[in-house]
């Protein structure tokens, strides 16, 4: 009886899917459901109590700061995305099409990952003494005579935040793009050349369309990482700028968990909408 049950392909299918389903239920669905529930709760100064009220959302949507902060978050995401895409695509293109030997390709690719041998935070914080008012960058520029006064906007500004983001996340763009580029059939490039396409035309009409899935995966990585970040913004702006992650982390620091949960729910919604829009452009599953 039991063995027959096990041979039934429906039962077997369910059994095979069960472990992953359980893991996802416990570690993905349940926490999100919990966050949504808590976002309707109330908070006193040092405790939270169950309730069903819209206070948290009311305060969130009622404050002009919220809209500014969401706008800043999207701005960071967009600028970082544009820069990492430009740099990431160029690097991947160079690796995939200009470096001929496979050994060299692998070696150079590993070089790209060297910064990742240290922690995220260290890579970020090491910018601070470099960009500071009396930092290396300013001192060098002054000694070259390029500037007379130290540049204030180098540190604790949007510039430094975006610089750190680009530094931290470009590799997430390089890897998937490089991966898809390596899988482009080289004969397609030869065919393009034989038909008289210039290098630029080949890039635009052959390579770019074929690299789209890689670009899309990299985009999703970068956009979600930037939109969910709070520590980079805090350190690189000296707490002078804010994104949604900072809003949430401030709330948590002040023990306002329901309010933090409400902000998180809205952020989650925003990110999902952004990704849904991105997926309208490229069907990743079809192209993989």
């Amino acid at each position, binding site marked *: 009886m039991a063995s027959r049950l096990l041979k039934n392909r429906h039962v077997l299918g369910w059994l095979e899917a069960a472990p992953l389903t359980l893991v996802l239920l416990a570690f993905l669905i349940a926490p999100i459901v919990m966050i949504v529930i808590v976002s309707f709760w109330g908070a006193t*100064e040092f*405790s939270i109590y169950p309730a069903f009220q819209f206070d948290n959302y009311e305060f969130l949507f009622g404050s002009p700061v919220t809209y500014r902060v969401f706008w800043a978050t999207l701005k960071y995401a967009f600028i970082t995305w544009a820069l990492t895409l430009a740099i990431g695509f160029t690097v991947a293109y160079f690796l995939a099409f200009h470096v001929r030997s496979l050994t060299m390709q692998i070696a150079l690719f590993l070089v790209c990952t060297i910064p990742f041998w240290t922690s995220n935070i260290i890579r970020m914080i090491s910018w601070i003494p470099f960009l*500071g*008012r009396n930092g290396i960058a300013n001192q060098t520029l002054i000694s070259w005579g390029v500037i007379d006064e130290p540049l204030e906007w180098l540190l604790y500004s949007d510039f430094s935040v975006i610089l750190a983001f680009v530094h931290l996340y470009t590799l997430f763009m390089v890897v998937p793009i490089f991966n898809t580029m390596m899988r482009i059939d080289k004969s397609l490039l030869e065919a393009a050349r034989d038909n008289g396409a210039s290098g630029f035309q080949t890039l635009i009409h052959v390579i770019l369309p074929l690299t789209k899935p890689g670009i899309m995966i990299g985009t999703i990585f970068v956009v979600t990482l930037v939109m969910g970040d709070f520590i980079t913004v805090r350190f690189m702006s000296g707490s*002078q700028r804010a994104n949604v992650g900072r809003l949430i982390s*401030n709330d948590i620091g002040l023990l306002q968990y329901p309010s933090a949960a409400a902000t998180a729910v809205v952020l989650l919604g925003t990110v999902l909408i952004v990704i849904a829009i991105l997926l309208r452009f490229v069907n990743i599953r079809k192209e993989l």
Partner: protein
Amino acid sequence: MAILAKPKVGYSRRSLLKTGGAALAATALPAPMIWAQDTKDIVLRQFGTGVSNLNDVANKVKEDLGFTLEMTALDSDSVTQRAATQPDSFDIADIEYWICKKVWPTGNLQAMDTSKIANYDKIVGIFRSGKLTPESEIAQGTAPHTVGFVEGPGGTSFASEETGWMTLIPTIYNADTLGIRPDLIGRPIESWTELLNPEFRGKASILDISSIGIMDMAMVCEAMGEIQYGDKGNMTREEIDKTMAIFTEAKRAGQFRAFWKTFDESVNLMASGEVVIQSMWSPAITAVKSRGIPCVYQPLKEGYRSWGGGIGLSSSLSGMELDAAYEYINWYLSGWVGGYLMRQGYYSAVPETSKNFMTENEWGYWFEGKEATDVITSPTGDTLAQAGETRDGGSFYDRMGAVACWNAVMDENQYMVRKWNEFIAA
């Protein structure tokens, strides 16, 4: 010594020998050996903010009293939360007075019988009558004596005067002001208004801890003459809104280089010259100075923003552990810890006992505001001042006598917290 020889937990054989003398020890020796045995197994769990949760103290407790003190250091928000929501997770809460105001109504702490505190009469007036000297005026905010006493063992509301039942036994306190880089400013700084002076655009900073930051803001706004507060420590919503509006405008105009949240950040901002004027804590000034960079804890004419901390006992503490906790408190006030803290620039609740654990030079420099006659070093051995230097702000009475307000928790605290979050995000 009769008190000590009573059969209760406490002094180990060794400290008894040291303090009690051989004659007494000879007669009482059998008994203390037994207590020492019991005492050895006692573990008291203390948690609090970093300032006084020092491993050196735990080691010294083990050495002098025989029992084990487990220390956990947390930030103020976590301390508040834990004291309020997890009464069984600690025996001793080392908290600030404004936290006490929040936590006491939960009933998680028990009142302490001052008749069991040997040095109670020597505790500084600030913590008893509220007055440093009989002529002193009581500052605004959560002044320690206003939340220092309850009517009796089970009292839930604070008493207005000394009752013999204390909520916290005061241990550490100080007067805070702005830190400046005199070499980069190059002129005298006298008022809190300088924090928002456009001259320092992009070179000022304030701390991003709402309950303390709001007080610094209030000192500035009041000094500017923009706002007259009824009580800076208990603002109305309008006062909070006005204060935040002034600072939000300054922030948008680029007045602040950065906000800091941790001790290290404040040190780095100042030492690197990113910031020349900012809210700061006393040991942070010392840390900047120890790098050879000039830094002054500038006394200002409007006065200081002060804070105080103390030890509270968990309501679940009883029996031998409770006795041990009282021993610990008595030991705390008996001078060694006080000397240790005062050599870092804080003040002890019973300065006169601490004097015995400081050199004349150290006492003169830290407490009396005199010129150092020799090099001043911290308890860990760093050089803090050279001979001939004096402490910023002068003597104990100069500094603690000029307190304008105490760190506080307001009735409108939650509103303030939300506004604070907006200010940070603005």
